[in-house]
């Protein structure tokens, strides 16, 4: 770990003016700093900022402060009642101890678990642009099958963000110059392309202040996480599904996927396949075809292609059951 400066902010405006790397729960950043994967010169502790509330918004949705912990968010009655997919995704993540520390803002910005990213002596374009990618041709069981590039095949490991993607959340921020903006989550994370080191559209020093959820759309909400052990493991594949049935047909469906890509994946083409159709195995398979049309395995992770298919089909069957 490199020596660093430390400052504690009392106000959001102060936090962005201090100029440094924000630290919230620290459950990801500190681990990376210990290994010198991350080497910030200055940490700005934002944990005293008043961003721990979950408030109802005028349009009937929720505004979740950036410092709301994963535990508190999962337990909130409004979330459990109106956005159960989010509660379930949160509770499927990490462990109780981690969720008590992990924050909403930090969870969105957690970095990949790629083993080569974590090992500073290995090539990694994300950690050291231009150095190569250790995972391509290496051990890539947990890596992406969608939206990859020849520079990086890492996944975004979050569960929470997958549910939020299906819920069409947006991210509120405060920039260093004092201006604010709201970024739809779908535009928030980037694909690796030629610059896997740039993971989001955030500017340097831009602070996440809250995440907004639009008014609940109801529907059947499911979060299914497939992993190598029953808990405390990252998703190999996860599916967040919100499905609304009407008269025996799928009125609409919102689907987001974890473990498949560099960002919480959403592809409206998959949803379009389902819209207005009567549920059937054949239909679900067509939805999976649409999802996986461009999927590419890298050896160790080839199984994710059939796994994603089967998981999606099963989730859709469950979501449309009894209709």
């Amino acid at each position, binding site marked *: *770990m*490199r*020596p660093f400066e430390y400052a504690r902010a009392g106000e959001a405006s102060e936090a962005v003016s201090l100029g440094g790397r924000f630290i919230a729960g620290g459950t990801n950043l500190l681990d990376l700093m*210990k*290994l*010198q994967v991350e080497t910030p010169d200055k940490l700005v502790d934002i944990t005293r900022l008043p961003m721990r509330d979950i408030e109802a918004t005028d349009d009937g949705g929720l505004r979740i402060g950036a410092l709301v912990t994963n535990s508190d968010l999962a337990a909130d009655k409004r979330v459990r009642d109106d956005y159960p997919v989010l509660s379930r995704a949160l509770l499927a993540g990490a462990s109780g101890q981690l969720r008590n520390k992990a924050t909403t803002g930090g969870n969105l910005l957690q970095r990949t*678990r790629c*083993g*080569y990213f974590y*090992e*500073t*002596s*290995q090539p990694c374009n994300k950690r050291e642009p231009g150095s190569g990618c*250790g995972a391509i*041709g*290496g*051990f890539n*069981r947990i890596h992406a099958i969608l939206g990859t590039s020849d520079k990086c095949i890492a996944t975004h490991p979050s569960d929470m963000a997958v549910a939020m993607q299906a819920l069409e959340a947006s991210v509120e921020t405060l920039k260093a110059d004092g201006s604010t903006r709201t970024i739809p989550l779908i535009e928030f994370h980037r694909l690796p392309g030629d610059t896997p080191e740039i993971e989001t559209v955030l500017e340097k020093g831009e602070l996440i202040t809250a995440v907004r959820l639009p008014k609940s759309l109801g529907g059947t909400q499911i979060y299914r996480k*497939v*992993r*190598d*052990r*029953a*808990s*405390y*493991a990252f998703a*190999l*594949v996860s599916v967040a599904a919100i499905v609304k049935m009407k008269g025996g047909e799928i009125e609409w469906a919102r689907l987001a996927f974890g473990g498949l890509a560099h960002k919480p994946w959403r592809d409206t083409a998959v949803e379009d396949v389902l819209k207005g159709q009567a549920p059937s*195995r054949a239909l679900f398979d067509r939805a999976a075809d649409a999802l996986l049309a461009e999927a590419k395995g890298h050896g160790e992770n080839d*199984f994710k292609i*059939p*796994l994603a298919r*089967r*998981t999606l*089909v*099963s989730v859709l*069957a469950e979501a449309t*059951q*009894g209709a």
Partner: protein
Amino acid sequence: MNKHVMDKAIGETRLDRNTQGIIGKGVDRYEGPLKVSGRATYAYENLAGEDVAYGFVVPAPIGRGAIKSVDTSKAESAPGVLAVISGDKILRASSQPMAPAAQTIDGEVFHYNQPLAIVIAESFEAARHASHLVTADYEPKQGRYDVKARETVRKPDAMPMEPVNERGDFEKAFAEAEVQFDETYTTPSYHAAAMEPHASVAKWDGDRLTVWSSCQLLETNVKQIAAGVGLDVSKVRLHSPYIGGGFGSKLGIGPDAVFASLGAMTVGKPVKIALTRQNVFQQTSRRGETVQRVRFGATKEGKITCFAHETDTTNSPGNGFFEPSGISSVFLYPGKDRRIAHTIVETDALMTSAVRAPGEATGMLATESALDELADRLGIDPIDLRRMNEPKVNPQDDTPFSSRMLLECIEEGAGRFGWGDRPQKPGTRREGEWLIGMGMSSASRKNSLMKSSAEIEMSPDGRATVRTSMTDIGTGTYTILQQIAAEMLGLPLDQVDVELGDTALPASSGSGGSWGANSAGSSVFVAAEAMIAELAKRLDVDAETLTLKDGHAIAGNRQIPFSEILKGEAITVLGQIEPGKTDEETHQASYGAHFAEVAVNVVTGETRVRRLLTVGAAGRILNHKTATSQCYGGQIWGIGYALEEELVIDTRNGLMVNHDLAEYHVPVHADVPKLDVVLLEERDTHASPLAGKGIGELAIAGVGAAINNAIYNATGVRVRDYPVTMDKLLSQLPDDYLTAA
């Protein structure tokens, strides 16, 4: 000193009489309150509040090569740094359990992230920071990282067993057999994954060195430290009273023990080193990968006529230790013509050594799956196959078994588990999305009794204190030694204290190979007999006629408190146990059986263990609670072997890819169902004066195979490449995976 050599079977003892009613009882852990309240000092916690320095080990970030030069200047001038040590004395990794010393690096990098140098600084943080400033110039070489490539093969040492055991002519018998079974199984590398990292604190006093370290075998460990520092062993004292798990990885010293000692010598004050989790993975030891070919020749009715179990396993240059996958095969399975053999495939990865049940843990994953496959092919129930093939004497050399309750364990387990309800045809029982199946396996673990000694002091008030250099690695050693002394001496439990983990105390066997309870326990038994003789002498009666209970000696109609017999003078006696003729005249092992029920998700291939039952017979059970806990531990590790554990080494460059506990998966609570353990009543009078045998590792042996066999029964898919992860099942799971609404 009272010495007992195990030359003949033991007769009735005071333990059988159980006058005090303590032996066997599931009493709570002696040191439990200290541990749960944080007052038990683990190695790194010693010298709290004293002026100490901290060490950090610098890894060499290449797979294999020569070190041309090391540049420590930047690190040396970093804030807080007191010294940087590199060169001759740097160790490659841990030492092998019984080796005189750990290997040094000799100017080379033998495995990825091997120790290169040690930074000593005023704080842990300063040391860690400066560790990144040490650089080196390497001449890289292409390393060998893949067991299957077999680039260099060689013969192992005769440690921990004879590498080749042959009888008759296997190849001929196999060629002539009616049924030929021939399959190959693979197991990956494993890491011990003990909770407490390898950690040491070292302090010099003139030319005398005191080390607190997390170690299992103090008598050899202290020599390994002395050798690493270049000191006479008489000048070194090693303490290891509490250990947060070893699982074999602390049988030899960790490099931290020598590094802390060298550091303390260099900077002139005590030094503390705890390896980081990553460095524990990369710089201590691991279990070798195995490729195991299992062949059975049999009649159509299922009588096994010949048997071969041939294992390739890995180790690094200069290391003769091998994963003895065939250790149980030697005596467990019949066959007049037989061959159990091991070969080392040399690789340039971290040295391999003992991890939780070396041999059985990997070997029985293969052989007990193979038996299940053989039964399936012959259309015989796996239990019937085992009944039909139970040898009467050790098939390797015809020695009689001291005791062998394998079939009793199987029968008991089958009844309790409801084996009769097992789906006859694989892949036919389904509950919603879950395919349900049952499997079983045998368990066995070779018993060993080691030389060990202990002292008992009875103070004038009649309290006893047991002292030995023995360790308690979380197994319950303190407690069972307390119980043995209390039972033998007729003392209430709270009148007996136990001091362990210090080389100044009488030399012990240490903890390893499940021999600890039997060996150290026997030494306490022998010492107690000496104490009884002393008491009898003072009373002028024959020791045999003396009954001891509740701190009183009862002779005829006299009942005298110990304090009265002692007349103000303490008595100290020493006892020693040594293995003897019974070890050669009989074959000794613990036996058991495991039963598993699993549910495999038909959509994803995720497996959940639903029930697990282990029935064991390991001679006298000294404490039912700690023994049962040992078995729970074994069952849980078994779940890991079957489904999760795999240390991944990148075969391109030797990198250990998953070197932390987030990515190296061991079972978590949610993976573990309700566990059942049943221990059968048994006395093995040839095994030790306690008539007990090793138990800890018995419960690991075979569990994973029982689970794998249950997966086959659930799905009809047979996986021979452990762990049985979803990707290996997925392509063969049915396509009609949707559950009808």
